[in-house]
């Protein structure tokens, strides 16, 4: 943030200036133009509406300009949730495209909205209402848009768990993927043309998947995973090389600490950085990560940016429902008394390297998050408990034939990174998991077995790998 010095100085004031109890006289001047201020961005930085608008708009363009990953004429998919940050992002793109030629953004945006009403406890009527509202918003932009339902994640192809060919590699997807993509596309279009969405067996299946999850923490992670994969699939089948998501600085700081607590420390940089290239062919970009949620909320209010609020995931516990919410509460509480908290966490995250998440081969890549397996040489440390798997489904709650070795949860563990192991253990029985995850896992277990066999022909050892 310090490089934006011309934008209003560095946030580091002298000493930990406490926000509370500073009795200000009402009309304080804007620090830039001297007009009457409308909000305080950082400690002691009052801005008026006009200057705040310029500051906000400049920041978006500066973020894209600095990172230089979006090329002119490129098709970019904006992932919108209807929430404040992604809605503000959409407005910035609209704003940038309507500018005079010298400052114009030059990429070609499309929009995607994923309806998660099923797992957020919305009734059918509420879902239809949110969807109609959202569709009207998307339509009003004039950009092409896609509407998806979280249910569709259950129909994803297993190839979504493999990185696509890099930009330097083969130009197009393989024939098989293209066909899978085509089928997917037809489904989506059928859904669109049908107008209203009716909950069918897939909604039930999705709810079962979520209800079988033991903790809210794992449920949040699962939702994030399904959503990412669904957006990624749309990007792949429709030919977008870049996806923009709207995580704010506040959200990034919360995610940094959350993921640290979830055991995903090795992947912080790809999980929260400006650029996430783990999928190979599709790059995820986070252009809103320089804005605090306060800036976004004020921007949306002042400049009438419409949002659609989705209710949070339901939880049974009132106190400490999930690690995500616990961290949110902790950080925001700290921020109240120490206003540099969020930006310090955020800037510390900036210094992390994405290198540990890079996987060389498939066997070294986590099945779920596609990051490099961070499990080498830690057998005797924190890793060991993740290998122990209690299997309650042994006694009959699982309808699958117990014959196949690949169909046990324990068989999946070696395919997962440390953080995903913890989450995976809290997911329900295998039968409830999305088909694409199971299909890809089985493929990888089989190919690992074959590799093992070809290596160990002379030995009679039947044990999988760990002793």
């Amino acid at each position: 943030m310090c490089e934006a010095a011309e934008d209003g100085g560095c946030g580091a004031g002298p000493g930990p200036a406490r926000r509370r109890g500073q009795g200000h006289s009402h009309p304080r001047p804007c620090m830039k133009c001297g007009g009457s201020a409308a909000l305080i961005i950082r400690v002691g930085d009052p801005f008026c509406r006009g200057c705040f608008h310029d500051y906000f708009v400049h920041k978006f363009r500066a973020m894209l300009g600095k990172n230089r990953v979006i090329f002119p004429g490129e098709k970019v998919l904006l992932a919108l949730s209807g929430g404040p940050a992604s809605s503000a992002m959409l407005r910035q793109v609209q704003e940038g495209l309507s500018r005079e030629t010298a400052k114009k953004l030059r990429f070609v945006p499309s929009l995607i909205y994923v309806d998660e009403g099923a797992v957020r406890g919305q009734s059918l009527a509420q879902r239809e209402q949110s969807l109609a509202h959202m569709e009207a918003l998307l339509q009003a932009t004039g950009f092409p848009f896609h509407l998806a339902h979280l249910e569709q994640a259950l129909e994803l192809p297993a190839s979504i768990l493999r990185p696509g060919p890099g930009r330097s590699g083969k130009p197009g997807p393989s024939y098989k993927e293209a066909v899978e993509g085509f089928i997917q596309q037809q489904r989506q279009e059928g859904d669109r043309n049908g107008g209203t969405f009716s909950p069918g067996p897939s909604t039930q299946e999705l709810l079962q998947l979520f209800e079988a999850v033991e903790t809210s923490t794992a449920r949040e992670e699962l939702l994030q995973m399904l959503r990412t994969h669904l957006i990624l699939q749309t990007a792949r089948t429709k030919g977008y090389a870049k996806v923009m998501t709207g995580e704010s600085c506040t959200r990034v700081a919360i995610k940094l600490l959350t993921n640290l607590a979830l055991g995903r420390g090795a992947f912080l940089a790809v999980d929260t950085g400006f650029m996430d290239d783990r999928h190979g062919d599709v790059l995820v970009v986070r252009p809103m990560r320089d804005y605090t949620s306060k800036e976004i909320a004020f921007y949306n209010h002042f400049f009438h940016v419409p949002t659609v609020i989705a209710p949070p995931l339901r939880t049974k516990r009132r106190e400490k429902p999930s690690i995500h919410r616990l961290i949110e509460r902790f950080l925001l509480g700290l921020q109240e008394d120490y206003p540099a908290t969020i930006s310090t966490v955020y800037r510390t995250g900036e210094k992390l390297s994405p290198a540990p998440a890079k996987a060389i081969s498939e066997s070294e890549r986590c099945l779920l998050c596609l990051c490099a397996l961070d499990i080498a040489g830690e057998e005797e440390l924190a890793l060991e408990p993740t290998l122990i798997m209690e299997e309650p489904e042994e006694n009959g709650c699982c309808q699958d034939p117990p014959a196949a070795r690949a169909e046990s949860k324990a068989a999946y563990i070696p395919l997962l990174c440390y953080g995903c192991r913890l989450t995976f253990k809290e997911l329900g029985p295998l039968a409830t998991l999305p088909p694409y995850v199971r299909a890809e896992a089985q493929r990888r277990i089989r190919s690992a077995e074959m590799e093992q066999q070809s290596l160990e022909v002379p030995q009679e050892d039947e044990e999988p790998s760990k002793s």
Partner: protein
Amino acid sequence: MAAPVSLQVEFGGGAELLFDGVKKHQVTLPCQPEPWDIRNLLKWIKQNLLKERPELFMQGESVRPGILVLINDADWELMGELDYKLQDQDNVLFISTLHGG
């Protein structure tokens, strides 16, 4: 001695979910010996408007961290926060920036 104060109280960003989904509330605060400030208003909201789970809106005598307060479209940090003295026809807006409830 303060006369009754009429206010428009609004909730946004998801905070309205704690108030039956109603965003705009036209309220009239009754007469009371000391003048109305935000601190008293919050107490009044807690007793009269808040439908469920006050801990998701309030923390101590203030709002929960992550909920922004705007008084007449300006940041309450410019206005003295809890000590701001409410005037007749003021508009007070609460915007939640929190993810979950």
